[in-house]
């Protein structure tokens, strides 16, 4: 904040009347100054995984046969869902496993980095009113967006080089290292462009990054659906920016041209962003806020009602997105089962026996997959609550006859109910679509159960966030680590050869994978009890601490 008012002074060094880019250089320096920790942390954090896989995989899989086990794991629909088109996995090398199995997560990470980076320096600045201070000095209309995009471009190019360098540093084959790195950077650019567009549309930074996040989700769903239909990806896959990078086929049969699509897409999205930003006022969205009710609805009278009101839009958004996702993933089960039936006999044996069991495996994986998505909803919900506190909106509420217990507990209740509701909804959606697709009504119940069974584990994640909120509120975001760990163990644990106790650390690992396994009730009860205990402790902590005021 202190540097904010000082920095634009640099911008005055290059006066140019009417130039919409005036001050861009100063703002770039300012962004780099503000992000001097965050940005390098993201870049190094992503790069380090190349080293990690480069060092760990040769240890884990010492013979080509070991590697083949991994690639078999990623065969078929589940592999397509979690990893991608799977180029080169029939004859795997360490490099093609890194690219083909884990590569997708580099793409997701870089997309997230760019969404947050662009939103942080554009819409967040506007929403907090800081942009007004900056724009009031000698700074052109497009300077802020340009500075942000230039930093994003530099970060993505830098990341591409870092990844390529890391491949070399980890003693891996470097023939397609730069192609893989560039593929990661290209996805970053694409989502920097998307975010440059979404931040123009809405006034609220959260909604802007939410929209960009939804675009990322859609890109994921489309790619996964396309890849599940045909090995190597179908035409549908090509509608997703994530697929363009995967279709470079690095370390198999590398080609650069799909990245031209990413660059073109990024440029088009950014251009649309500029166009829109030229048409609106500082701080405003494209859609003018509508007027609302002069009085509150009669039900809006309790802390629980307030919690629900604050989460309502989010619940509707998540609900519709998950139902759409469920319809897609359930609707393509038939071609997936058919593809199993075409597999040679020995292959089916390796993959667990008869083709219907394969479908059960798919359903149980979807349960875990959707549970992790709902986990994202849960953590975002607690972070919203934290935002309510730091933005000063809790203060007037707690100055009424609302106890901290009622306010926090009520909100946690809303999130818990929301999480269970979303699991039920997406389970029903996938179940119904699957039942229709394969013509077996039994899947409605099976699939719903395979989702609902994760409710206690999600409650534990909610409770961990609540505990942090109660005792270490500024560290509430650390809950992401729990979910991320659960995801890694859940998807890749079987091929990571980790000791059992490491698996046990993830709440998601204690849940029976329905309908493959039999339902074990005890872990569910234990998880629920743990969740209640942690949440209770979090509540107690919150009642004892100072409120963070604005």
């Amino acid at each position, binding site marked *: 904040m202190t540097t904010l008012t000082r920095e634009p002074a640099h911008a005055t060094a290059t006066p140019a009347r009417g130039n919409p880019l005036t001050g861009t250089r100063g703002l770039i320096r300012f962004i780099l100054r503000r992000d001097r920790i965050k940005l390098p942390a993201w870049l190094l954090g992503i790069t380090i995984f190349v080293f990690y896989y480069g060092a760990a995989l040769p240890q884990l899989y010492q013979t080509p046969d070991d590697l083949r086990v991994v690639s078999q794991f990623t065969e078929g629909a589940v592999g397509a869902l979690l990893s991608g088109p799977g180029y080169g996995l029939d004859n795997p090398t360490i490099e093609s496993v890194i690219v083909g199995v884990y590569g997708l997560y580099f793409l997701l990470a870089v997309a997230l980095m760019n969404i947050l980076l662009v939103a942080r320096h554009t819409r*967040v600045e506007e929403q907090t009113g800081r942009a007004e201070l900056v724009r009031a000095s000698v700074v052109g209309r497009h300077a802020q967006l340009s500075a942000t995009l230039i930093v994003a471009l530099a970060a993505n190019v830098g990341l591409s080089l870092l990844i390529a360098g890391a491949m070399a540093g980890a003693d891996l084959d470097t023939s397609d290292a730069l192609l893989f790195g560039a593929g990661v950077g290209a996805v970053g650019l694409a989502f920097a462009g998307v975010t440059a567009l979404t931040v123009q549309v809405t006034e609220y930074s959260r909604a802007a990054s939410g929209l960009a996040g939804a675009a990322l989700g859609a890109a994921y769903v489309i790619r996964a659906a396309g890849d599940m239909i045909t090995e190597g990806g179908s035409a549908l896959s090509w509608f997703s920016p994530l697929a363009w990078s995967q279709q470079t086929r690095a370390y198999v049969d590398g080609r650069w041209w799909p990245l031209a699509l990413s660059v073109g897409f990024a440029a088009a999205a950014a251009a649309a962003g500029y166009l829109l930003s030229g048409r609106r006022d500082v701080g405003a969205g494209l859609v003018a806020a509508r*007027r*609302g009710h002069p*009085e509150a609805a009669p039900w809006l009278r309790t*802390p629980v009602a307030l919690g629900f009101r604050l989460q309502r839009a989010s619940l509707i958004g998540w609900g519709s997105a998950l139902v759409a996702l469920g319809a897609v993933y359930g609707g393509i089960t038939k071609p997936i089962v058919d593809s199993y039936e075409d597999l040679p006999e020995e292959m089916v044996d390796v993959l667990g026996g008869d083709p219907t069991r394969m479908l059960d495996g798919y359903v149980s994986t979807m349960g875990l997959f959707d549970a992790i998505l709902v986990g994202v909803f849960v953590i975002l919900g607690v972070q919203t609550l934290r935002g309510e506190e730091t933005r000063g909106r809790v203060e007037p509420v707690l100055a009424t*006859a609302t106890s901290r217990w009622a306010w926090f507990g009520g909100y946690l209740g809303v999130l818990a109910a929301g999480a269970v509701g979303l699991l039920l909804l997406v389970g029903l959606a996938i179940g119904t679509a699957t039942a229709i697709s394969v013509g077996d009504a039994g899947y409605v119940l099976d699939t719903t159960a395979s989702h609902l069974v994760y409710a206690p584990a999600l409650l534990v994640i909610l409770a961990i966030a609540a505990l942090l909120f109660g005792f270490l509120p500024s560290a509430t975001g650390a809950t992401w680590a729990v979910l991320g760990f659960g995801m890694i163990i859940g998807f890749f644990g079987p091929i990571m050869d980790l000791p059992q106790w490491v698996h046990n650390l993830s709440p998601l690992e204690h849940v029976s994978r329905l309908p493959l396994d039999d339902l074990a009730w005890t872990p569910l009860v234990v998880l629920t009890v743990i969740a209640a205990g942690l949440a209770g402790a979090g509540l107690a902590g919150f009642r004892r601490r100072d409120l963070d005021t604005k």
Partner: protein
Amino acid sequence: MTAAIATSGLVKTFGSTRALDGLDLTVQAGEVHGFLGPNGAGKSTTIRVLLGLLRASSGRANLLGGDPWRDAVALHRRLAYVPGDVELWPNLTGGEAIDLLGRLRGGLNQARRAELVERFDLDPRKKGRTYSKGNRQKVAIVAALASDAELLLLDEPTAGLDPLMEVVFQDVINQMKAEGRTVLLSSHILAQVEKLADKISIIRLGKVVQSGTLTEMRHLTRTTIEADTTSPATGLDRLPGVHNLEAGDGRVRFAVDGQHLDGAVKALSQFGIRSLTSHPPTLEELMLRHYGDELAAAGNGAAGDSKDDGDNR
């Protein structure tokens, strides 16, 4: 009279910052109490401790006969609060926010709500972020004043209101006073405090440095006297409590401490007073005495610093 608010030796530390440093504040039931002090003096912190939003590090606080931290919920039914920097929910209208806050307190007076919305000329149909600063402030004021609370804690309630609305606000507070409610009014607007407050406390660096009625406080400070005398006034500089004496040409001008005013005027009358004017110190002058020290101590007003709210989204 009983005390609606009584604190003694209240201390609140944030890390190494001592925001409150042994604060003694008493507000009697039924009075409007002005709470003045430079930026960063600890006014908002005091009010937040009284609301049980912050927990005092040490010292005692009593609010309406209860403990502000322990009995927060029960006490909040009987009080209403206007924060200095009002934030509204972006997707709720002003009207919805007023109703919600009122209901969470245990109900609000519909007739008074309607009257206040009218008098403050507030459009309750707008969504939170589309209000201007002054209008956001009005939403919080209406939400607080539409209740039947017996105690009002107002933290710079009119920051951002235009002069017309300021007058409406003063009217409403006077009406509240007539109804026998207690008001703690933190403010930087001296004219407002002068008009409304029965008593005033001045806080500096987390301590109350002066408290009393305006008259009492004036008594504690210097009055400026200007007089024409028939014979030249001499020897006044030897009197206790006389400062800044300027004499000559049959005119004399000096400042005198409140408790020595009587002696000084008696001495002056020996020289034959032809005309006499006296200026009691204005509230500005009272304040400047304290702010002045503050500025000197802190090397030009670096005492209050705003927290950086980071870039959390």
